[in-house]
């Protein structure tokens, strides 16, 4: 536990000092909203279109973060030190996943209000508590699977190519569930009820991939 805390502190301090991942992710998300405005040729979106725009943007922005997750460690040789340290390898995964979760939360603190300001139609309903629940569950899934993908791709020659190739199909269930759950919240005639079924799918995904990643992550670091 203390190992996780120390590693997490290191991750967050690194991010606070370099400002590498979070600003890139947030900027990317805002630019993507602008791109969507011109590509869809619509001033406002609502319903399933709004939820699709939001989730595609968040997914691609999180891919950027996934790409950077292990880069500093492998490039500057910190990984060797971490592997030599007498700690459980799983602690490394947990710390990385929590750090990634923090990055995602920071991204959404900027991206979701920006989405409300820039694109969401005035007639579209909004239900903040429901949206927060969906975001929290989806973040857990993205962090669990994304950290595993980052670990898989980081030692390869074509890391930047492999992360989206592996990550996008793997995260499709999250996108299906999250966008299905968000669509009624953004419905044109005011927010409709939150479909609990999709929250259950998100929770199941988080559980399966969380446990799976804990089980297999050790093998990525055995050197």
């Amino acid at each position, binding site marked *: 536990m203390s190992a996780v805390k120390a590693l997490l502190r290191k991750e967050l301090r690194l991010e606070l000092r370099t400002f590498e991942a979070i600003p890139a992710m947030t900027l990317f998300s805002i630019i993507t909203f602008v791109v969507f405005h011109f590509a869809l040729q619509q001033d406002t979106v609502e319903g399933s279109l709004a939820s699709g725009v939001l989730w595609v943007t968040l997914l691609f922005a999180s891919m950027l973060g996934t790409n950077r997750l292990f880069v500093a460690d492998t490039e500057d040789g910190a990984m060797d030190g971490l592997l030599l340290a007498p700690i459980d390898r799983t602690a490394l995964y947990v710390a990385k996943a929590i750090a990634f979760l923090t990055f995602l939360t920071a991204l959404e603190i900027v991206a979701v209000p920006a989405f409300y300001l820039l694109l969401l139609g005035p007639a579209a309903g909004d239900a903040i508590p429901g949206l927060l629940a969906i975001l929290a569950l989806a973040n857990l899934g993205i962090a669990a699977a994304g950290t595993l993908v980052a670990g*898989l791709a980081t030692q390869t020659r*074509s890391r930047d190519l492999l992360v989206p190739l592996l990550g996008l199909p793997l995260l499709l*269930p999250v996108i299906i569930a999250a966008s299905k759950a968000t669509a009624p919240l953004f419905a044109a005639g005011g927010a409709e009820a939150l479909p609990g079924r999709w929250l259950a799918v998100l929770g199941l995904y988080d559980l*399966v991939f969380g446990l799976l990643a804990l089980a297999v992550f050790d093998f990525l670091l055995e050197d």
Partner: protein
Amino acid sequence: MYGKGLRPLAIVTCVVLTGAFALAFFYAPMDADQGLMQKIFYVHVPMAIVSLLGFVLGAVFAIQHLRTGDRRHDLRSYVAIHLSLILGVGVLVTGSIWARAAWGHWFVWDEPTLVSFLIVFLLYCCYQPLRFAIEDPDRQARYASVFAITAGAFVPLNFLAVRLAQQYAHPRVLGSSDALPPKMRLAFLVSLLGMALLYTTLYRFEMTAKNTRLRVHSLKRRLGGDVVLGRSAAPR
């Protein structure tokens, strides 16, 4: 030495597959709605089932590889996934042809099984690029196994999510196999057996070829010659 029993297996496969197609065409009744086009069902569905089982098999071998550290399990996992991918191309092609004939479109988004299969196929397409991108053979084997296990767990989860997403899918033209009339069901089961045998034969063939090549390499090395290994993502 490696290919023992391969010839009888291949012959049995040919016989069963031919028998299955004969049953499908001459024994099973014509579908009332779709007529002759429905016969593609006897190729498409068994192929899809066998291909998905092959992915699961790859995950099982991968678990064994990580548990025992025996590289032969990695080779088995690789071959299983490789063959499933090849069958997967067949599934998508026959599925498109069937969809075009039955519904008028090459691809239909409200058919959950087809969509799930496409997603699974796209994920497994990354298996070989991932292997190619890692130089060290030991690490390559471990990473590939981790990928195979992750993707194996992803398959049922993905099917669940996609199926739930299409709750208003149009009525299934062909339900599950127990809803089939008995004659069609027999033809279907024989086709499934034939396809499974085909998979096994191809699997044994590739394993034999790989093992023989490894043996030749090691013999050559012992003779002191230079061995030029091809650039391949396959385990060595």
